[in-house]
């Protein structure tokens, strides 16, 4: 049996589990909030075109609208000023082979439960590697915080001094890119950067370094607690939007049952 036929069979038999890491596109799902004088990220919206009625007797359909960065979404290098001049930096230009790859999951859920501003640091990554092995080149690295289980105001966790949510330090994200050559970095929070990430130098280091190095981001992921630390394969293909800087998408993981 060929590898692909084998894969298909094992998915069908349940030996390989398909895990959905995607939030439902819901008009009430939080989006990132910027100072009000800046342009804002559009919320997901859905308007009925017809519903088996006088507007279309035998069919129901909707017009939908949203930002490239609404809901569970992919960030392309073109999203950030550091990646603006890179080749193939928009979602429609990225080699599709990048959309399927191995994934390492660093469990920060205990730390995030204790400290809403929890930081992923280089020592933490090295500690994870001591237990699970070195992060392979070309891997997705996902920061599990169980933040996707939060609802309502708890999710953005917005206060007068801005949002509070976990994220990587500038050193950690540079380590992952420069020392481990990762494909991209994904989180359960609304941004790859910590809620207070604009107070690092540089501001928003995950965005700045990842996209400056042509790497990708995945945000608003869900259910990362369903993934093993290593061994899963991530499928994350953004919509092919011309010159798109990102895209809502369905993120799936293939997990081998042991």
């Amino acid at each position, binding site marked *: 049996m060929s590898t692909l036929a084998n894969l298909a069979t094992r998915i069908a038999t349940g030996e390989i589990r398909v895990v959905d890491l995607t939030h439902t596109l819901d*008009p*009430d799902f939080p989006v990132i909030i910027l100072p009000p004088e800046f342009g804002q990220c559009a919320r997901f919206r859905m308007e009925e075109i017809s519903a088996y009625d006088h507007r279309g007797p035998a069919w129901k359909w909707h017009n939908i609208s949203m930002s490239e960065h609404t809901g569970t979404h992919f960030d392309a290098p073109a999203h950030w000023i550091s990646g603006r001049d890179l080749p193939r930096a928009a979602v429609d230009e990225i080699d599709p082979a990048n959309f399927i790859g191995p994934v390492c999951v660093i469990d920060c859920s205990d730390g995030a439960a204790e400290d809403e501003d929890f930081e992923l640091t280089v020592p933490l990554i090295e500690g994870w590697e001591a237990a699970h092995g070195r992060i392979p080149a070309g891997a997705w690295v996902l920061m599990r915080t169980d933040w996707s289980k939060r609802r309502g105001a708890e999710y953005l966790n917005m206060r007068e001094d801005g949002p509070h949510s976990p994220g990587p330090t500038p050193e950690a994200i540079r380590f992952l890119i420069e020392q481990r050559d990762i494909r991209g970095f994904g989180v359960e929070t609304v941004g790859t950067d910590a809620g207070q990430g604009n107070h690092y130098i540089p501001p928003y280091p995950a965005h700045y370094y990842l996209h400056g190095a042509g790497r990708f981001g995945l945000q608003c992921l869900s259910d990362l607690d369903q993934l093993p630390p290593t061994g899963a394969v991530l499928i994350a293909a953004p919509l092919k939007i011309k010159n798109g800087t990102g895209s809502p998408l369905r993120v799936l993981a293939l997990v081998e049952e042991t």
Partner: protein
Amino acid sequence: MTHPLSPPPKKDPQKRSVSPTRPPEVRSRAALHLTAAAAEGRFALQRCADCGKVQYPPRDACSACLSTDLPWQDMAPGGTLIAETTVQTSPRLYFRERMPWRAGTVQLDAGPTVLAHIHGDVARHARVRVTARLDQAGQGVLVALPETDTPNMKDDPLMRALSADPKHRRVLITDARSAQALALARALQKAGAAIIFAGEPESWRPYPQRAELEALGVQILPMDVTDTASVKKLAGEIGGKTDILINTARFLRPGGVLDRGDTGFARDELEVNYLGLMRLAQAFGPGMCARASDGVNAAAAWVNLLSVGALSNARPFGAYSASQAGAYSLSQSLRAEFRPSGLRVMNVFFGPTEEDDWYQPLPPPRVTASALARSVVDGLQRGLEDVWCGDIAQDLRDRFRRDPKVLEREMTLGGEGA
């Protein structure tokens, strides 16, 4: 003396809701000036520019000198009730359902004798104050009130029919986050509103006045006027007990066409200010229209808060003004569409506000939320259609009426150049 109005009993679920009926609507074009004045709470009659005679009813020519120069002027309200009758039966459904009905003639101090509805507290042959009100057909009628206020006089069935008094009514404030929501809730509560609901968009984003609204007892329920499903959902839940709807949802940013350079904020302005109103009306309008004669807490009014920039574009809020003009035009369509039910549409116009951050760089005067709330409640109690809150709104209204083109030219000055 008027009996104080009791809170209405809970509705008998086995009884059909009363379909709205209306008093006669047809008027001559000349008589519509009386309605236009009543729509903003003024009592005006024609005074002949040539011979000075004040005449009633309104005509196309002076009944004394046949002049056609008949400007409308605000009248002193004083008069004497000279004759009256209590109508016991009528071919008109609206009056049949409200019998007996008191009507009479008043000799105005200003000259003419007028036909008026008579408040229950007016004694025979007494001195009265004549005021012009809009009836359920949206037409101006004259009402003789006691010369001085009497206890509970607003509770008289006649006054309830000629107003949209919040007392014992259930009010929906559509956006709890609005800078005016808290002041409105306070004013409505003071005016005796039975329940105050407030729609809350984006509950995942905290805002300081939420705690204060909750402390007042406001029922905060999820609704975002840009999300059709959420508007339909709330209408499904409370549409049948929304007697007054006050649309506080507003998206405001400075900028015109060239200084913005994109359509992002304009789209938000239209989504909230124009399409938001349309979504609310499509979801809540039919139910409110159906309940426009439903007893003490019948659905009574739809209130739009509009920037006076709706009349003539006001820089530096050019694009926002355009969205307000759209909302104003839509409110006129709503008036026409609600008219058969008797549900009122009240537009409250105002200039820059104190509490909306975006007006911070503008010099005073600015309209405070509490002043706006007072205007809203006063307008509802008097059954108005057009309310002009604050000096800027009143000034722009007057200049607009004098000459819209002159106003436009003043509002679009280029500034002195080389």
